[in-house]
């Protein structure tokens, strides 16, 4: 820095000399310090991360941190090739980002890492190298999740061999891989357990030991019919269970128990809804407010194969009563939604084709604001 500093000095002098050769003069003003801002010690309850795979420039993945109340952009991470999304550590004390880099941008040697960012400076503070095989997909929250105790980061691999990479978070080290033949993605179900969804509609349950190795692996019976009415991968956690939605509009609760997983189904649609061809769908089309157990489902009018179409409304369900309690008509169609977990929650909505984030009151459904010029193809949302 000394060289650079002195360099800057030279510039300053050159400048004043050259600019005021004409006789006028410049009085020096002690300039503001050259520094970078820091974020508050505690993340805001209404902050949200917007993950952007930047589909047209996949080497330049980005994650934007926004404040839903002020509508301000708070900061950004650069997150490499085929970016999936950030994972928040315990109470947001660290930000984990599975990333992929090539020695020549889009060619050369592939290196996969998990980068740890400090929450106040958004600077990389640690990096764990992992096998260069993490799944490259249209972003899916289920590609990378933490165990409930925040000890292990679990990353889905598809090469096309299927497995899960395990990273010891506090130890900052790669632990190993767990084979998941025929099964995909990661759905944590307790302190040290998760399941993957299998092609035949079953699930693979995995129990981890204290070293992050597979203590047990067992495959359940078929839980849903993947041919006639598959569940999407975009389930949400409800207590120790997972709630999924099917293409046709059923809610499917997968409840892990002592012996395997039980499945219970109810419909998100009534007769009129079906007649009008309402369906759930999108990229991240479900969100749950944990304490009130309000389920937010992104809905659109569409037929067969419309499971990824953007939604025009968000329907809110009382999960306990299994019935719809509210319809929120969106200002603009959305492909992903998320809700904050506080008592006055916000609902965030993005469309992969629009560079902005729409913010709603998650209780009243009132549109609050739109935050513009965010990314290129905003894909998924992560709240605190």
């Amino acid at each position, binding site marked *: 820095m000394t060289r650079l500093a002195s360099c800057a000095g030279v510039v300053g002098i050159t400048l004043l000399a050259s600019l005021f050769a004409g006789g006028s003069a410049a009085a020096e003003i002690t300039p503001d310090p050259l520094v970078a801002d820091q974020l508050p010690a505690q993340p805001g309850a209404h902050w949200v991360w917007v993950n952007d795979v930047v589909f047209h420039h996949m080497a330049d993945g980005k994650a934007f941190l926004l404040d839903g109340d002020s509508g301000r952009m708070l900061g950004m991470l650069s997150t490499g090739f085929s970016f999936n999304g950030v994972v928040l550590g315990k109470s947001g004390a660290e930000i984990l980002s599975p990333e992929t880099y090539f020695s020549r941008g889009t060619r050369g040697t592939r290196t996969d890492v998990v980068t740890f960012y400090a929450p106040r400076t958004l600077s990389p503070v640690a990096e764990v190298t992992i096998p260069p095989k993490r799944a490259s997909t249209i972003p899916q929250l289920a590609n990378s999740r933490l165990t409930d105790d925040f000890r292990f980061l679990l990353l889905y691999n598809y090469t096309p061999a299927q497995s899960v990479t395990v990273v010891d978070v506090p130890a900052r080290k790669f632990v190993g891989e767990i084979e998941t033949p025929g099964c995909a993605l990661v759905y944590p179900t307790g302190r040290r357990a998760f399941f993957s969804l299998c092609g035949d509609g079953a699930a693979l349950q995995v129990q981890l030991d204290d070293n992050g190795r597979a203590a047990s692996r067992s495959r359940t019976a078929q839980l849903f019919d993947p041919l006639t009415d598959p569940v999407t991968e975009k389930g949400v956690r409800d207590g120790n269970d997972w709630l999924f939605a099917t293409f046709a509009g059923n809610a499917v609760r997968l409840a892990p128990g002592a012996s395997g997983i039980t499945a219970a189904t109810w419909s998100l649609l009534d007769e009129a809804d079906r007649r009008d061809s309402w369906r759930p769908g999108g990229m991240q089309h479900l969100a749950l407010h944990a304490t009130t157990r309000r389920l937010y489902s992104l809905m659109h009018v569409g037929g067969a194969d419309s499971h990824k179409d*953007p939604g025009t409304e968000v329907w809110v369900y009382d999960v306990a009563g299994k019935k719809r309690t509210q319809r929120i008509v969106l200002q603009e169609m959305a492909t992903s939604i998320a809700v904050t977990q506080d008592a006055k929650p916000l609902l965030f909505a993005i469309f992969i084709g629009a560079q902005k984030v729409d913010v709603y009151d998650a209780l009243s459904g009132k549109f609050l604001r739109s935050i513009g010029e965010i990314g290129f193809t905003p894909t998924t949302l992560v709240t605190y």
Partner: protein
Amino acid sequence: MQQFDSLVERLSRSLAKTTSRRSVIRKLGVLLVGTASLPLLPVARGQAVVKEEGDPATCEYWRYCAIDGFLCACCGGSVTTCPPGTEPAPVTWVGTCRNASDGNDYIVSYNDCCGKSSCGRCLCNRNEGDRPIYRPQQANDLNWCIGSKANIPYHCTVSRIVGVVEKKR
């Protein structure tokens, strides 16, 4: 700015209007053909001759019924060949598409071309028969460049006919 719009339009159209467009297509019984369309004469493909029409540079072209990505036909390649300098991925997902010209359903293999950044042209997303990624061979959300020597850098997608569904009589 036209181009920004057309990009967004493509994103929106492809994401939002797929269904209605498809149903229109079904109703007409033949594929919609844009103004830029070049009706194709029957051409020899391997040993097979498939009579077809439509513009391979539009999302509506019949073979693209389950595609998700940039059309190689717009990127320096063709409906079946990769652009110069890109590496075809042998492992793929497949769709079953109705060819209106002969009424047959064909098995279409969507091979990704890899090793360069995204082409950025003719983005299409149609999901006929698409399944979640826990059913990989029918999932267009997976980056199939994983199967290529070039690894995951994705450029565009070709659509190759690999089979025909025999009609029951």
